[in-house]
């Protein structure tokens, strides 16, 4: 994993990490809020449905317990009236009961063998009444009221109406003996239906009432008339309690409960489609928010990543250019300010590198030139021939001492010129070199000039540029030997003043005009090629080695003197 991560670019890593973290947190929050909302709505559905179911059952229980209450009262009167042999009064009471209680269609007391003892309507009843289920069940379990299913009443009102029958085994007196009979009460079912319709159970919501053996007693869903309908199957499956089910492609919350005293089950099918649809809506919205946030994150993260990585890449490419030696190109980046700073610093750095490189290059170049010039001088054949000729003539004149001195000077001069030492040498070495040179030239020019050194001891060990004096002295000899005078003087001074080392080369010559001096100054400072290579070379090297404070100054008075002053800051030699 880490290895793979290392292979990714900076941009990819930042992007990937951001997306992963965001996706993780988003998923977590989406799942959590989804769960919360779902459980909340589930609880809401459950409690609301259960409340509605409770209300419905209470309506039915009130309605039915009223019937039981009437039956209890009637039973008491049955005992009393039959004990007093007032059966007629009992029929009258039954009739009044049906008049007061509009739900009750018919009340009758039937003996165990199927004889009508008392009835609210005067009819003859068929003896097979004892085979009807409500009759048999009442006899079978004598201590409870039996609630029959819906049926058409054939014994009393000839199938005119749908009723259900409440039957109860009762004790009564017949011929002063206790006998067992059945009290039956026929109940109109229209109120049953009204109760169902009064409750708002939503579109296609309905109520199903079933007997204990899963026969449909009443259903407000017109399609559910037999115990094989889907609602009945759901009820048989649930048995008791509440559950969310799919019914006819609708989400229904079904509550199955019992109705007190009746051994009936009642199930309310409540349409909760809208609430469950809301759940789906919320889910879709949550997912939309999830996707949108993720996309936004991806875009923003990639934008900011690019603000960093694009300039970084430019920088990287630029570094590759520098690797290949291109110091001239410059980077222009836009983006994160830190990276822009970095690029600017990089530009400065590459500028500086280039400057230094140019400097080194120039310096090396100058040095090479100097050496070349020095070499030229050394192997200048005229210089050597002339010197050797001079030595020959000295020898012919038997001036052996002078011959010896000349050869020693020549030897020393060449040794120093050829020696490949540092760029900078101590002033005393340079003076020694020039002295040898002057000695040789004195012989050549047959003592037409004299020279002298006035060097302060304290400056003897200061650094000067190697082979810088000789070209200046050479110039002094060329231009400074006055033909009209027997002896010209060349004076070389060295002193320190205000942190500078000054070396003056003084000669008595024709002098140079101001204009010419200016010309020479311009010439040596420029890049152009000149015939005065020696002076220019010294000037350039002076600037390179000691910086801008160093200078080469020409002073002159016509027919009087010429003075070349070399000025160098002390201790500021650049150690390149």
């Amino acid at each position: 994993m880490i290895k793979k991560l290392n292979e990714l670019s900076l941009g990819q890593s930042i992007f990937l990490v951001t997306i992963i973290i965001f996706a993780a947190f988003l998923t977590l929050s989406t799942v959590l809020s989804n769960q919360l909302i779902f459980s909340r709505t589930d609880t809401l559905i459950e409690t609301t449905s259960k409340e509605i179911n409770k209300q419905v059952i209470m309506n039915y229980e009130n309605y039915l317990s009223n019937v039981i209450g009437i039956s209890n009262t009637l039973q008491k009167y049955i005992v009393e009236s039959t004990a007093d042999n007032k059966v007629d009064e009992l029929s009258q009471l039954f009739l009044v009961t049906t008049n007061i209680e509009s739900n009750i269609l018919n009340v009758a007391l039937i003996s165990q063998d199927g004889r009508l003892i008392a009835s609210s309507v005067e009819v003859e009843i068929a003896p097979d009444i004892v085979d009807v289920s409500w009759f048999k069940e009442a006899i079978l379990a004598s201590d409870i009221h039996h609630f029959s299913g819906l049926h058409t009443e054939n014994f009393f009102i000839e199938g005119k109406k749908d009723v259900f029958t409440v039957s109860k085994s009762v004790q009564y007196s017949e011929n002063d003996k206790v006998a067992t009979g059945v009290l039956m009460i026929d109940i109109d079912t229209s109120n049953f239906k009204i109760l169902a319709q009064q409750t708002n159970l939503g579109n296609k919501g309905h109520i199903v009432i079933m007997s204990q053996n899963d026969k449909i007693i009443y259903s407000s869903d017109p399609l559910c008339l037999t115990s094989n309908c889907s609602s009945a199957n759901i009820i048989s499956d649930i048995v008791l309690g509440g559950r969310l089910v799919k019914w006819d492609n609708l989400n229904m919350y079904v509550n199955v409960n019992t109705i007190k005293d009746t051994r009936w089950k009642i199930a309310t099918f409540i349409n909760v489609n809208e609430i469950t649809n809301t759940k789906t809506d919320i889910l879709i919205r949550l997912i939309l928010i999830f996707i949108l946030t993720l996309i936004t994150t991806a875009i923003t993260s990639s934008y900011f990543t690019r603000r960093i990585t694009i300039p970084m890449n430019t920088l990287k490419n630029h570094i590759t250019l520098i690797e290949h030696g291109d110091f001239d190109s410059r980077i222009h980046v836009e983006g994160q300010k830190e990276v822009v700073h970095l690029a600017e610093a990089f530009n400065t750095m590459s500028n500086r590198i280039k400057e230094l490189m140019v400097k080194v290059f120039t310096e090396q170049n100058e040095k090479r030139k100097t050496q070349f010039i020095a070499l030229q001088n050394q192997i200048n054949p005229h210089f050597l021939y002339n010197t050797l000729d001079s030595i020959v003539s000295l020898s012919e004149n038997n001036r052996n001492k002078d011959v010896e001195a000349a050869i020693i000077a020549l030897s020393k001069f060449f040794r120093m010129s050829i020696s490949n030492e540092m760029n900078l040498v101590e002033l005393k070495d340079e003076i020694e070199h020039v002295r040898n040179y002057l000695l040789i030239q004195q012989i050549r020019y047959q003592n037409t000039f004299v020279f002298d050194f006035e060097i302060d001891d304290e400056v003897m060990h200061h650094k000067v540029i190697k082979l810088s004096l000789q070209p200046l002295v050479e110039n002094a000899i060329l231009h400074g030997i006055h033909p009209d005078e027997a002896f010209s003087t060349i004076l070389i001074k060295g002193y320190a003043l205000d942190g500078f080392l000054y070396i003056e080369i003084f000669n008595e010559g024709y002098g140079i005009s101001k204009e010419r001096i200016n010309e020479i100054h311009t010439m040596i400072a420029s890049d152009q090629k000149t015939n005065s290579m020696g002076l220019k070379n010294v000037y350039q090297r002076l600037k390179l080695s000691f910086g801008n404070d160093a200078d080469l100054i020409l002073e002159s008075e016509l027919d009087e003197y010429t003075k070349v002053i070399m000025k160098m800051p002390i201790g500021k030699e650049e150690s390149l």
Partner: protein
Amino acid sequence: MKRTLIVFVLFLSACSAGPKTVPLFIYDGNDAYISEFEIKIHQAVGEDFLIKTYESQNSQIIQNEQIDQVFKDKHTLLIINPVDRLSVYAIIEKARQNDTTLIFFNREPLESDLYSYDKAYYVGADATQSAELQASVIMDLFDNDPKNLNQLDKNQDGIIQTVILKGEQGHQDAEARTKFVIQELNQAGYKIQVLDIVIANWDREIAYSLMDGLLEKNGEAMELLISNNDAMALGAIERLSEKGFFKDSNQNGIIDRVNEPWFPVVGIDGISTAIESIKAGYLYGTVKNDSQNMALIIIELTKWLLEKRSLEDFPYEIKSGKYVWVNYQKMTLDE
């Protein structure tokens, strides 16, 4: 990682271990007898399992809801005092679906319902027996001489004029107690005239409020008040005292039946307030429903069923493999 997993597993097993919880449903926490009974059940429980009580506020709808909830928690055994004994068939069906054992008490399910499921039991007292013993208390009241009733037969017609406070209509105990107390007295040779049967739903307050109507109608003729339970009897006594039927003339807190006016009332159940009332001379007598013993038997049966032990060795008789009957006891000042 591995260690975390082990800790987690240990934690889970620690959760699932510990004693089992057995849900106990009582039909109404306001019923004095039932709430006393619930306390006795809690006292009878050892450390083998825990009992969690669900109180159904005398509503089968609430009880059904609670039972549905409990079935979702996968309990293997429920102890139920049903609100509507006729609705028990639905609970049994649900239990069959979940293979759950049921112990019913206090309200007896229909025999056919109980026999329809082999894991259903009933622990209770036989209502017939309570009626027989209540009849016996009444006989004591009349000095056990049906031919020659004592001074409590105020009009001296040789017939006991009585009013019955009936529990709940359709409640098997109420039906049986009402029916058999009269039947038992008749068989013993007593002539009984039932002036009125009023249904007070086992409730003290209802009985109290029904008394005015009864007194207005039957006032002087009334010689005896038979109540299906103690709570209703105590409600009636409260109103009777206010009407002057009981008079603590010397204000010693005790009715002296020789010198102070009193009225014979008999109950059933033997709840603690009824026993206090007997000691104070108000309630003449009651029949103690031995809830102490019944609670012990229910807990013992629960233990055996949870441990899947063979009920053949069960220390109490299990009639037809379904019924454990607990005996009633007579309670009067004399006994």
